[in-house]
């Protein structure tokens, strides 16, 4: 094992050992959740360092009403519906995009928004709808593609605007004050765009240390080490261990593009509710690219399963195995909530990678065959 990793691990244990109370750290970002699980990082930190997965999974937090709208858009005449792979299996009230595809809708997975725009250029008799999800890492891509669509006069292209912003979500969580959080591991790639200084209000207003880290295990351990050190020593600062990619001010070009095309708006987060200024809405100059407007679709209600605790899970109020549906009725083959469908959803990651929950299921608490 790498020497750096070993030393970071030892230091975390030494520091955490100086405190008897649990150290609760939220890793906001879904990609951190997956990396932590894939690398087995929870098995490397002491028991009193608790990693809580936050609402940083864009798929998990996309409101049901937006998924239902995507499905209705897919059913449109001469529509090619394009989406990132992450969204294909997420269930709304009307089922999932994957199911629509099986019923004959033209639903295509794209790796990039540019792929969606190319499809529009190649298929002038069809309307290409692109499901625009993701946080500030992905929003600039959508913005760039819309600017290009406008410049090229590609009117047969439109988007379902469902981008979200990370810092308002963190602020809302802290304002609600329902989960004792000692610090935040901040998402490396969102930070590439918004800059490390974007978290300063969290540090200053809520007095929680924030450390920006990348996604390799070394990065995560270093980030955790800095966080644990701050917490144990009673410090409250903004740190960045991902300096190779993240600057204090972020990517100004990307930020300008976002500002040119979008403006902050209140947005519904699945199973949480509306969070102020947490979404991105199209500015008037770009509103004709709004798919809901173009196809005259009204957003419907959200109807989450009454027993589903996805909302609590993504806010860190409950662990996946505290949801009554986890494993038995809700599992990756038959997901009820988005946290189980999305490969970076906390519940899916827990189910796939966590020995403890696998053991509990195997002990006869039911659940599907592997």
């Amino acid at each position, binding site marked *: *094992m*790498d020497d750096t*990793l*070993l030393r970071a*691990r030892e230091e975390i244990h030494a520091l955490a050992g100086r405190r008897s109370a649990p150290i609760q750290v939220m890793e906001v970002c*879904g*990609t951190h959740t997956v990396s932590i*699980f*894939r*690398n*087995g*990082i*929870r*098995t*490397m930190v002491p028991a009193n360092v608790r990693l809580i997965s936050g609402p940083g*999974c*864009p*798929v998990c937090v996309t409101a049901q009403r937006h998924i239902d709208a995507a499905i209705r858009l897919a059913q449109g005449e001469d529509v090619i519906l394009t989406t*990132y*792979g*992450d969204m*294909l299996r997420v269930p709304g009230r009307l089922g999932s995009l994957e199911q629509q595809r099986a019923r004959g809708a033209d639903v*295509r*997975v*794209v*790796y990039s928004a540019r*792929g969606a725009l190319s499809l529009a250029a190649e298929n002038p008799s069809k309307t290409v709808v692109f499901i625009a999800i*993701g946080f500030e890492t*992905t929003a600039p891509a959508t913005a760039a593609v819309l600017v290009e669509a406008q410049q090229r006069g590609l009117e047969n292209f439109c988007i379902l605007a469902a981008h979200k912003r990370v810092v308002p979500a963190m602020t809302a969580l802290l304002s609600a004050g329902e989960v004792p959080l000692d610090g935040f591991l901040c998402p490396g790639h969102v930070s590439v765009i918004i800059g490390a200084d974007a978290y300063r209000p969290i540090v200053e207003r809520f007095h929680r240390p924030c450390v920006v880290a990348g996604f390799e*295990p*070394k990065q995560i*351990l270093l980030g955790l080490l800095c966080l644990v050190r701050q917490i144990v020593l009673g410090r409250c600062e903004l740190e960045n261990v991902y300096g190779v990619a993240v600057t204090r001010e972020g990517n100004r070009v990307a930020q300008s593009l976002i500002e040119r095309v979008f403006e902050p708006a209140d947005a519904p987060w699945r199973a949480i509710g509306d969070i102020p200024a947490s979404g991105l809405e199209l500015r008037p100059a770009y509103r004709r690219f709004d798919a809901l407007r173009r196809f005259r679709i009204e957003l419907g209600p959200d109807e989450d399963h009454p027993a589903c605790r996805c909302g609590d899970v993504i806010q860190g109020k409950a662990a996946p195995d505290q949801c009554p549906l986890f494993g038995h009725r809700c599992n*990756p*083959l038959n997901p009820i909530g988005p946290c189980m469908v*999305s*490969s*970076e959803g906390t519940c899916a990651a827990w*189910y*796939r*990678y*966590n*020995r403890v929950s*696998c*053991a509990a299921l*195997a*002990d006869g608490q039911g659940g599907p*065959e*592997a």
Partner: protein
Amino acid sequence: MTTKLKADGRPATGTDAIDRIVIAHGGGGELTSQLLCRHVLNVLGNPTLNSLTDGAVLGAQAGSLVMTTDSFVVQPIEFPGGDIGRLAVCGTVNDLAMMGAQPIAMSLGLILEEGLSLAVLDRVVASIASAAKEAGATIVTGDTKVIERRGREGLLINTAGIGRQADGVRLGAERIVPGDAVILSGRIAEHGLAVMSRREGLAFASTLVSDVAPLNGLVAAILGTGADVKFLRDPTRGGVAGVLADISRETSWSVEVEEARIPISQTARHAAEMLGLDPLTVANEGKLLAVVAADDADKVVAVCKAHPYGADAACVGRIVATRPPLVELLTEAGGRRVVQKPYGEELPRIC
């Protein structure tokens, strides 16, 4: 005999002008015969196949017979390192090989989509011929059907294979016990990633090529060492994770695998990372996973490494008695996590 294509843009006459499959090719009449003669038998032909009887007589066989069947629907039908034809032969031969059997005879069912280019068909049939020759497999009977156009220039293949099991072969999950070694014959994830690189919507070029290969020679070499080989399986759909999960479920033992020992190229590792895929879940078409008695692990790895299709073989883990039965990966980072059977289509992600 060569394919007759349109020449100089001047329409040739009659059936010579056809350069694509049309529905009539499946009609069982003159056009079908022409298709078979000019595009299948000319390359694959052998006395048994050429007689075009309803069935092939194999004659009495000594030893235990193994039979397998498989269907091939891969898209695109031609990909870096191979095509659906090579895949069909190797897939069938490998299913037999995992049972310790060498191929005696194969059937070949072709389902051709209206609109399929005959030039593509010729390439696929040539691949079938060369793969069959390499594996020592003979195609003794076949069938051809044509389906209506679905816009994909499609070709689907169904096969059945019959093989003879080597004497003294005792392969089965029930023989696996704690302490046994888990061996992989080489670098993983190349087939699945090579195919994905050609899929529409992804458009990334890669130096990765499919590893599709017939493994019956490698299996014969392994069994020929006299090592106590308990179990063989090729990690196709579902990847290595799928096979390990199956072993754990079938035996009720746990499997411990070390991530650092798993052979994988940097290119494959990065391609998987780009797409957000776990390499353990990606399909392989020219690799095998073996469970052997601990004392024989080194011998088996050595004989693999001496074989062209086993150059990067390694012992990657072992069977352990931990309960409940799980597959655990000791990660390169120094942690542990559970490996489970993937749930289905692994899709490229942004998150």
